[in-house]
């Protein structure tokens, strides 16, 4: 038997980080041969991760733009890089291996203590504890998320309430786990916000390690050594300074707009006057005219660059720098719990029996799939619902419905 704690949210495609420590799927490194049913994401879909579906690897720790940010937040499981796994494995065994990995990562204190406590307890008790807590948390969550959630920096009260419910169901150190959970949630929110804005502020962090490159040629024409030119007579004379020194001060300014304002021209106040005109639905003639104007203005591309620009506008060429989530912008607005907590859609299915079991496996797999949109997941579930309703008689004969 492998230690299997129910997985809630794993993939950090758009900043989804695991909501709770108990929701992390940890399988013993030695026992990874028996991975769970649906760890391998569907490769037909949008992202193409190379070499991902090996039995030993977590498919979640690879190359999106966010993997750097989210390595810390999704610490206990998805932060494990494949290199780390491979180098740790041959030396150590089993539980020590796992714990070393966990302790090496940037994890909060409670997580570490919690896993040490896990190790000390019998492994079989843990999975029994968590499904109960999961039920309470998920039902709480499902009730809470019927409405829209509050955006921006504050966590929504339902999330806070859900976090406190989860923490209270944990066996040890409830206040600390609660604060940890809230911290994780806040970090997740801030990560998604940053990702949406496009990380304009943090470029300083990235370039902090880079060396400052000084412009080498700024002063060398001014040096006396460079100003003497060799003449035919052999006397030599200095370089013409002339115009150069007048523009030196101007050139030294870093930008065009840093000088003192001269107030020669009045600043324009016409921007407030234009109102948005009410445009009715453009008729076919208008569209045709606009197309004609565009065709007249558009010139044939004079070179390869213009050709590439034209293709990018047409959509034939991807936008650079490559955005893995091009075309998926509205997906990032979907909160992670709609991807993960899919139990509420199982209401039309029977409560017991093989059909339910099957659908729970389907839900489990879908919740782990980071490549599908919520709409696609819903379509899958819908299809199964219709199919089983059609095949009701067959199922009743075999007493399965």
């Amino acid at each position, binding site marked *: 038997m492998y230690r299997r704690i129910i997985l809630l949210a794993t993939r950090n495609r758009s900043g989804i980080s695991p909501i709770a420590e108990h929701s992390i799927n940890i399988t013993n490194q030695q026992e990874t041969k028996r991975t769970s049913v649906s760890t391998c994401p569907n490769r037909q879909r949008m992202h193409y991760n190379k070499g991902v579906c090996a039995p030993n690897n977590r498919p979640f720790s690879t190359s999106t733009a966010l993997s750097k940010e989210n390595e810390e937040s999704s610490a206990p499981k998805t932060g494990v890089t494949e290199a780390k796994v491979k180098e740790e494995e041959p030396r150590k065994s089993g539980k020590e291996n796992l714990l070393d990995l966990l302790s090496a990562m940037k994890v909060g204190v409670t997580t570490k203590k919690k896993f040490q406590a896990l190790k000390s307890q019998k492994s079989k008790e843990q999975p029994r504890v968590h499904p109960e807590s999961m039920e309470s948390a998920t039902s709480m969550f499902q009730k809470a998320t019927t409405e829209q959630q509050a955006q921006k920096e504050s966590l929504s009260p339902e999330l806070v309430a859900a976090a406190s419910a989860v923490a209270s169901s944990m066996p040890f150190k409830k206040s600390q786990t609660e604060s940890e959970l809230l911290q994780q949630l806040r970090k997740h929110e801030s990560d998604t916000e940053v990702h949406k804005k496009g990380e304009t502020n943090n470029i300083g962090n990235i370039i902090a390690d880079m060396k400052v490159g000084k412009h080498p040629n700024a002063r060398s024409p001014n040096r006396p050594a460079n100003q003497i030119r060799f003449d035919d007579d052999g006397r030599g004379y200095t370089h013409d300074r002339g115009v150069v020194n007048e523009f030196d001060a101007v050139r030294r300014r870093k930008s065009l707009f840093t000088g003192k304002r001269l107030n020669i021209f009045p600043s324009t106040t016409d921007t407030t006057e234009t109102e948005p005109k009410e445009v009715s639905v453009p008729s076919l003639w208008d569209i045709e005219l606009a197309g004609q104007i565009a065709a007249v203005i558009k010139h044939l591309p004079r070179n390869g660059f213009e050709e590439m620009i034209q293709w990018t506008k047409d959509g034939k060429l991807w936008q650079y720098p490559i955005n893995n989530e091009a075309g998926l912008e509205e997906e990032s607005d979907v909160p992670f719990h709609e991807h993960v907590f899919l139990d509420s859609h199982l209401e039309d299915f029977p409560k017991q029996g*093989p059909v339910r079991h*099957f659908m729970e496996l389907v839900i489990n797999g879908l919740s782990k799939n980071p490549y599908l949109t919520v709409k696609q997941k819903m379509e899958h579930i819908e*299809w199964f619902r219709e*199919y089983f309703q059609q*095949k009701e008689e067959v199922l009743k*004969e*075999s007493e399965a419905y």
Partner: protein
Amino acid sequence: MAASVLARLVKSGFEFLQTSFRTTSQAGNVEQVRGYYVNWRMLRDVKRRQMAFEYANDRLRMNAIRKNTILPKELQEIADKEIAAFPRDSCPVRIRNRCVMTSRPRGVKRRWRLSRIVFRHLADHNQMSGIQRAMW
């Protein structure tokens, strides 16, 4: 004249022009139509790919029902028959990765979708970015 040809082509469902077949216009003249694909085999492969894309979800779900130890066997047998009833071109196994330029079915490198001959031709004329003759 052009309009009737176009209308005829749009009718063919997938909107691809077929390689050089003859259509009769309204006036009764026989006209040739030039297409974009190298040959008919390439066209059929394109059709198979489009159909496989259409039926991909359905096939995935049916296979999930079939390859299962949980659901009853009667249901799985019915699912077997249903998936066999799908059109033959809907299965992805029938897709062949042909060369994009010459439609050659063999000797095609997947990364470039080109056959070895075309690849060599382009690489020798410096049209392949980052490809260089190997020498070590």
